Each structure stands twice: as C-alpha cells, then as structure tokens.
C-alpha cells in the first residue's frame, strides 16, 4: 500500500515526460489522495503533549 504512491508518482513523471500533461496531473492527484489515505491510517495515536 505504501509502495503504490511511489509508483503512481513515477508514472506521473513518465507521462509528463511523454508530453501527456492531463493524465500526469490526474495521476499526481491520485498519488496525493493515496498519501492522505496512508497518512490517515498511520496518524492515529494521541500526542503526548501534556505533563
């Protein structure tokens, strides 16, 4: 699951290089959404900010 956004980013860069701007930006958005999903999974425990 954590590997997936790296691969979508790699694909987005590749599509950009191939002159396909719109699909590249769509893949960028997909990558960012995946980052948010994974972040939501990992950012769960309470912060220990009070003494």
């Amino acid at each position, binding site marked *: 699951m954590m590997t997936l956004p790296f691969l979508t980013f790699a694909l987005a860069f590749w599509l950009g290089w191939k002159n396909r701007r719109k699909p590249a930006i769509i893949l960028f958005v997909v*990558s960012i959404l995946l980052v948010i999903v994974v972040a939501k999974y990992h950012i769960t425990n309470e912060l220990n900010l009070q003494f």
Partner: protein
Amino acid sequence: MNNQNIAYINFLGIIIVSAILSGAYYFQFVMHEYPCPLCLLQRLCFFGLMFGLFLNLRFGFSSAHYGLSILSALLGAGISYRQILLHVCPSPTDHGFGTPVLGMHLYSWALVAFLSGILAIALLLLSSGQFEKKENHQLTPGFKVLANLAFGICFLLALTNGLATFFECGIGFCPDDPDSYMLFNGEWW
C-alpha cells in the same frame, strides 16, 4: 528575471530536493536506519513538490504547476509537524526517531525544507513575466535538456524509493517502527 533564469531556479529546486532524498538513502542504506511510515510519507510529498517544478520545465511556467508544488509542500509540512509533535516532549525512552543531523532530526529538517520550498515558490510567483510567451516555451533547446535531466532524476528516485519501500513494507501498510526489510523475512504484509 528572464524565463531561462527561472527555469534554472526550478531545476535547482529539483536538484536540492533530490539531494535531500539521496541523503535519506544514506541514512537508510549506509547507516541502516529503516524509514518510518511518516518518513516515507514525507518523501512522497517531496516528489509532489518536485512534480510541479518538473511540469514547469516540461510544459512551460504555470501558476497551476506551482500550486501543485505548494499543495504537496503543505501536506508534507503537516506530516513532518505531526512527527515533531510525537517526539516534542523528550522522555527517557523517547529521544526522537533516527539520528539527528546538526542537532535536528530528519523530520525537523523536512519541515524546514517544505516551508523553504513554499517561500521560494512564493518568491518565484512574484515574477509574472514568466507566464507570458508560453507557446514558445518548448522551442528553447535549454528547456528540453533541463526537463529531460529533471525527468531522469525524479523518475529514478521515485522508482528506487518504491522498490525499497516494497522490500521494507511488502504489499500492506508499513509497521510503525520498522527494524528490518519484511520481504527478507518472508513477510509480504
């Protein structure tokens, strides 16, 4: 400032972020410190930051491209800030994650890098002349060389990071405090 100089600054931004990601490789493969899930998420946001700059070099300067970079940098800053807060109250058992560099942990440096990136892009946006003459952008040979170089760096880093993460985390989510490469232990998730 002319467009060629702004292209060089965009390229320099990609080089700086690539150097940061390569530095993370040093800690992972030379010092054998396995990146935590939040560290990997920050790496991903660095790729998002580079993506907008790459699009500028490939398709011409656009405020939308800068916007993509800023969005990624904001997300990355949020994640690194969250990791700072996790370790902000030191205890006998918690000295932060990983080895500090010049007195700060890598996630603290990441926050500095993301905020610096946002500041740099804000300064670049002040130069409004770059958004004119977009149709001539791809005719300049210098841009094509920079875009190809930027693509090579970003693509290679994204692929190798993906591969390293696959070996560390398998096909599932990463363990909170990784201490080995899961795939080497025969664990796929």
